[in-house]
């Protein structure tokens, strides 16, 4: 069993978001970087659990990014995984990134590719789907449970207003959401071990891009809250009805 886990580097959830160069670039100064929470808490931890259950399982991590993503991939390795691969390319085009991952996935003949359900910076929820298409493999998105029995995966996924359970034969690409696993905290042994685990650097394949960021903008500031006294709830209802036209 070979599992490839996609890892992305994103700004910490409390980061103040701002832009520079005429709103064309994200301002990275002062930003703390973390592993994308869905990649870390769900995709990676589930892969590690599968390896704990069957020690012959091989878990590889992959990221597409510059040298500045290495601290993040080391942090991920501290949780688990046998080896990490960094495709040495920087792009904000999902197709370009997905095609690099698919290239590695194809060469390595992985049985399972795990991603987080989306990254908390671009929120596109795209990489897993694109990788699956490029591999011509089935895709289960927004998984909330993942069980493996031999080469059959039983996966529960979010649907509007509920969940459904699906069965599929490997290989499969799965995007992982809450429920697939529980967040883990790396321990000292893991952190030490991560230093000696191989981190391979691979040059990117020649792939076209399909999109390009033109600019960023911040939402307009809120006008400020209108407070209503707690003993005058009728006034709130009036405002919501007449002013906001929300009810």
């Amino acid at each position, binding site marked *: 069993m070979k599992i490839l886990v996609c890892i992305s580097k994103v700004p910490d*959830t409390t980061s103040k*978001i701002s832009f520079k160069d005429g709103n064309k670039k994200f301002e990275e100064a002062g930003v703390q970087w973390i592993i994308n*929470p*869905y990649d870390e*808490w769900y995709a990676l931890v589930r892969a590690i659990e599968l390896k704990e259950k069957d020690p012959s399982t091989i878990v590889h991590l992959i990221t597409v990014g510059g040298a500045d993503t290495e601290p993040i991939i080391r942090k991920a390795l501290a949780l688990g995984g046998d080896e990490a691969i960094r495709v040495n390319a920087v792009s904000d085009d*999902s*197709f370009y990134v*997905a*095609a690099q991952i698919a290239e590695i996935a194809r060469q390595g003949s992985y049985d399972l590719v795990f991603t987080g359900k*989306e990254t908390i910076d*671009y*929120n*596109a*929820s*795209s990489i897993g*789907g*694109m990788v699956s*298409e490029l591999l011509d493999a*089935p*895709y289960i*998105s*927004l998984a909330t449970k993942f069980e493996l029995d031999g080469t059959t995966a*039983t996966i529960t996924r*979010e*649907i*509007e207003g*509920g*969940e*459904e*359970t*699906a*069965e*599929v*034969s490997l290989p499969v690409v799965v*995007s992982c959401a*809450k429920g697939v696993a529980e967040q883990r905290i790396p321990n000292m042994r893991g952190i030490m071990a991560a230093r000696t685990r191989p981190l391979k650097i691979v040059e990117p394949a020649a792939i*076209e*891009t*399909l*999109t*390009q*960021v*033109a*600019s960023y903008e*911040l*939402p307009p500031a*809120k*006008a400020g*809250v*209108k*407070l209503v006294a*707690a003993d005058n*709830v009728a006034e*709130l*209802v009036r405002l*919501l*009805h007449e002013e*906001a036209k*929300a*009810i």
Partner: protein
Amino acid sequence: MSVLILIDHADGHIKKSSFEALTYGADLAKQLGTTAAGLLLGTVNDDLPALGKYGITTVQHVNNESLNNLDAQVYAKTIAEAVTATGADVIVISHNQTGKAVAPRLSARLKAGLVAGAIALPDTSNGFVVKKTVFSGKAFANIGITSAVKIISLNPNSYKTVAGEGTAEVKELAVTVDAPKVKITNVNKVKGEVPLTEAEVVVSGGRGLKGPENWGMIEDLAHVLHAATACSRPVADTHWRPHHEHVGQTGIQIAPNLYIAIGISGAIQHLAGVNRSKTIVVINKDAEAPFFKAADYGIVGDAFEVVPKLTEEIKKLKGV
């Protein structure tokens, strides 16, 4: 050149988010000087010609029941064939659970650039630039699609449905549909509730409500407003509420017309999931709660007193 819009459905009915996508696609076609068609995969009980009222001229129908279950691989291939058959060059899909599974696959298959989570019509004055939310609602990005064929997945609740006059012509589309590789073995839907991502009004509770036994008043308020219920992360983590109600950066992102936050402090990770709501009401006993800074209306007070009164006042307004 034309616009093709995926008509998404469940349990025999077209989803509300698809009416938004149809309106959006028809408006986009107008902007581009072309026509818009809907694409229905599978079967529904709804009136298909009536979809013309959203501005589409045609419904392309792949009448095959196996498509009532979502297998993203089969969907992407079938849609790609429909794109070829109709000569469409812009495809619109809702950025809901179906869209998140299908749109990226279709993008890779057709080498068609995808903007996932669009919130407005593209700017076509110089290229094809689509606005989407990024950083979990804390900012927007304007993204140019550079490929010939383009895919937009539209955030639910971000484009207003407009129904006018018109009838669409329904055409059966003969394309090959592969056998699904994904076998659905069980579907578990919460019956009778409004799905959170489609709800116009959401009533949400946090740790300030002290325990799951106090959710009755939240449900009562939601009931009079025909609202969906939601909660903050610790509430879901402690199993006071089911995890599909968890909104925020690591939960579901929503953009209802009205979001009522009760006993929620308004941490930045919570706001990231709800800050695109059109009107935000905060009820919190702490005047310093950060949520008030993101709110439009607020009451500083004890939820256990305010919420039942609010329910009563809304009942009065609605005459029930």
